[in-house]
């Protein structure tokens, strides 16, 4: 189909596009056994946590329930890009297939792009299902706007990028494993995703103005409900910063291995 004579294709846009197509196919096929598990993990983490927080809090006022319900889709995005994507890279390192993947005759930027595309796209069904379940569970009047599209795309692209950079920049897969578990722990228990940042002690709130978790929740929440988030553009900027920073780190880590 696309495959023309190899020598002619070694540069230029068609070569890059063909490389991207091939890597997308390669990544999808090699993770096909994982897809169902990924989806379940996402929904458990998002919708499951939305329900669990409700049990812990007991009878919630509408405001608190809206916070939990609009935080849940963000929780569903985090495990995919920030933990499963680096763990996939780590498991390639453990299995010894990591160098093989880099030996494939495609530009490395396309291999990275393929990972971003796949993990961004895979986050969407979990996001939607979680939102629907949380909505149904708490019976809220949400105001879903078109901003949900850039919000979900940016949050999942950002976490896919950070996860990719983590997986590649950290040499030891065991450390990647520990870090990803830490991310889950911090995101679920110590992040202002399902709770207002006002509940947090000053130093932790200050840390969360730099970390991406609160900003992820902000852009998503602003697109789902009115009046809960102010200055959402700051959050878009911070998330954009994290994405670009992750790309730079990934470029360094991937280029270093040449």
């Amino acid at each position: 189909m696309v495959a023309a004579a190899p020598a002619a294709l070694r540069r230029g846009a068609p070569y890059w596009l063909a490389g991207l197509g091939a890597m997308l196919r390669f990544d999808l096929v090699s993770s096909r056994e994982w897809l169902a598990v990924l989806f379940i993990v996402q929904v458990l983490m998002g919708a499951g946590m939305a329900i669990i927080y409700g049990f812990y809090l007991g009878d919630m006022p509408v405001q608190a329930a809206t916070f939990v319900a609009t935080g849940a889709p963000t929780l569903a995005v985090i495990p995919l890009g920030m933990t499963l994507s680096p763990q996939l890279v780590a498991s390639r390192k453990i299995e010894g297939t990591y160098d093989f993947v880099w030996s494939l005759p495609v530009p490395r930027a396309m291999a990275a792009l393929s990972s971003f595309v796949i993990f961004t796209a895979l986050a969407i069904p979990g996001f939607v299902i979680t939102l629907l379940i949380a909505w149904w569970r708490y019976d809220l009047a949400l105001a879903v706007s078109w901003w949900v599209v850039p919000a979900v795309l940016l949050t999942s692209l950002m976490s896919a990028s950070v996860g990719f950079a983590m997986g590649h920049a950290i040499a030891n897969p065991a450390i990647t494993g520990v870090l990803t578990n830490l991310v889950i722990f911090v995101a679920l228990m110590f992040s202002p995703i399902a709770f207002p940042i006002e509940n947090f002690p000053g130093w932790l709130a200050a840390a969360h103005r730099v970390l991406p978790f609160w900003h992820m929740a902000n852009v998503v929440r602003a697109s789902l409900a009115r009046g809960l988030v102010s200055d959402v553009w700051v959050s878009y900027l911070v998330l954009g910063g994290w994405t670009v920073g992750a790309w730079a780190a990934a470029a360094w880590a991937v280029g270093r291995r040449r």
Partner: protein
Amino acid sequence: MTAVAAPPGAALRSGIGYWWHSYLMMVRWEMTSLRVVLVITIMIQILSGAGFVLALGLFFGRVPGRAALFVSTGVLVITLVQIGLVLGPQLIAQQKAEKTYDFLWSLPVPRTTAALGWVTTNLVMGLPGMAVALGVALLRYDLDLRVSWALVPAVLLTLFTGTMVGYALAHALGNPMVTVAITQLLIFLIIGFSPINFPAEQLPGWLAALHRWLPLAPMADTVRAGLTYGVVEDLTGSYLVLGAWAVAACGVTGASLGRKG
């Protein structure tokens, strides 16, 4: 050591002395083979227990007294049982995957001592996390705790039942992957869908009713009754359900180990 180590022979192969000697050997065996895991587990237990207690303040902003009381006492139960119910089956699944499982059962000790050795190891791993979580809760929240002697049997029975249910699960299930998947779901069930960290009224009615017959709620009730006054009712029922689970778990373990012997 020399006092315990009698010369091996026919005379020692039965009786309480032999059994006790084997039990000590198995405790030493478990502790030595787990020494790295042991330290890491105790640290994780301490961090997650204390973390849970502290995270509650972030959930609520201003924590209601009853919620603080439930989480502070519930976390103790979770630290006690998650080793036996989650880590234990995973370790046994790993032994099966690595093919060292049969070797362990070929050791010349009564199998009851192997089981009790594991329960003892669980106690060593669980108690520090439990103590730290309680300490953090007392410092952070203004709790009305009244510790009574009933705490001792409650903790021991909870730990024993949790460990033996996990043990039965791991020995009865053939496929290690299934064991790991089930234990992952169990964490979720324990933390999120059991009336351990919050009152049963906050669960949907059918789930609360189901929990009267599962071991998790009785574990929480018995331990909580040892720490508080007037929060838990119908303690006898809890002890009965918990005891029944302990006996059943021992039965299943015995049957599946006997089968393999």
